[in-house]
């Protein structure tokens, strides 16, 4: 369904302009990192792309889905992992099966697929435990499993490690790389430069609701094109 094209995309909540005229073309393949300080509009941009929010102006075009792709179909081919995932009050396995069931798959098929992805994220032994009693890191892995189980073409991740310790962060990052290796497009937000370097192939740098640059990762860190990006890179380095 890629490439994804954004045409003069804007979003305002009341009088506050959060996304200001962003145009971009996101291709299949490279892991795209949406980078920027808090409040830059990263999460909102992602929610617009995932059609959780409707833009106040501009258009979003998924090219691959043009021929006959309807709204539902579009939604089913993408999935999202939230910064603070909501765990349903049921077992880990049932959480993964939930989305699959909504997609209309049979119970058996759902269970097999769900056990497979739980195995991959290392939660198979916790399949029957209630999701809400798992640790923060386990819950985030479960959230990724739940999204990945749907077999999306594109996986959005909104600061998936923001609340996690280094070990849990490492687990999540290797899972994300495995998903990338399996051919799913990764689009992820972060404000962490180290993570952007480790996981990114290209950077979309956002500042104050504008897309300041869209460049391959090496060039971004070597010679940032915008003053904002240069400041952000400098400012972050001491805490990296």
């Amino acid at each position, binding site marked *: 369904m890629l490439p994804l094209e954004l045409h003069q995309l804007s979003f305002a909540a009341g009088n506050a302009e959060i996304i200001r005229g962003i145009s971009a073309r996101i291709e299949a393949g490279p892991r795209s990192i949406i980078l920027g300080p808090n409040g830059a509009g990263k999460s909102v941009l992602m*929610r617009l792309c*995932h059609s*959780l929010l409707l833009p106040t102006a501009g258009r979003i075009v998924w090219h691959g889905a043009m021929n006959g792709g309807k709204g*539902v179909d579009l*939604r*089913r081919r993408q*999935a*999202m992992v*939230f910064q603070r*995932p*909501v*765990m*349903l*009050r*049921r077992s880990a396995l049932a959480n993964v099966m*939930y*989305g699959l069931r*909504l*997609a209309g798959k049979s119970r058996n098929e759902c269970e097999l697929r769900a056990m497979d992805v739980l195995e991959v994220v290392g939660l198979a032994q916790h399949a029957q435990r*209630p*999701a*809400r*009693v798992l640790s923060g890191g386990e819950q985030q892995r479960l959230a990724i499993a*739940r*999204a990945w189980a*749907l077999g999306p073409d594109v996986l959005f991740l909104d600061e998936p490690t923001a609340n996690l310790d280094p070990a849990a962060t490492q687990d999540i990052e290797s899972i994300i790389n495995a998903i990338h290796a399996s051919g799913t497009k990764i689009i992820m937000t972060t404000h962490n430069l180290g993570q952007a370097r480790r996981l990114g192939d290209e950077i979309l740098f956002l500042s104050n609701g504008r897309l300041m640059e869209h460049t391959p990762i090496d060039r971004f860190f070597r010679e940032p094109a915008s003053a904002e990006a240069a400041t952000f890179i400098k400012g972050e380095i001491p805490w990296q």
Partner: protein
Amino acid sequence: MTSLWDAFGAAWQLIAGFDSTLAQIVGLSLQVSLTAVLIATLIGLPLGATVAVERFRGRQTVIVLLNAMMGLPPVVVGLLVYLLLSRAGPLGSLGILFTPTAMVIAQAVLITPIIAALSRQIIEDAWREYDEQLRSLGAHRFNAAMTLIWDTRFSLMTIVLAGFGRAAAEVGAVMIVGGNIDGVTRVMTTTIALETSKGDLPLALGLGIVLILLVVLLNACAGAIREMALRRYG
């Protein structure tokens, strides 16, 4: 003082000896109030869930009305149901005034707003938390509402128990539409009111004790369910 203790003693004997009058009255009370709470839940829960997840014109007004109707005075509900069911009323031809059916209707009218308003609050709070996640996973409104009801089931059960407590402890509505007919529409609360004014304290006290035990038991159940749910499901 002695007469009070005597009355307690006699009341206890009625309970311990499964006195048939007392058992019959308690039985009718439970039957009427359980049926009423079942009907009120079948109407109130979907109503609350719908108002929680749908956005429509006049929604805020509906919420204010539902909340206000939680405080409906039972005697007024009784009066309105009486007018509806009385011979000259619009539903008079059914001939159900002064029957347990009329009492079920009155109690259901009384507690449906309670169940609707409180479940609306609980489901809407959960909806705020779940909204984006459920939409992302591909849930439409109906799936989402069902998921929310299932995920808040323990809180909702507490509401249903509260509704039952309110129904079982209410006097005014059942007194008016039931008529307090001996052996037919006499429930715990109406009997207590009648027997007290007649001076038959043992039966009144016996029923009072059963009623209080019932309310305590319900609250204990509600508490235990919440505890268990928190421990098991987080």
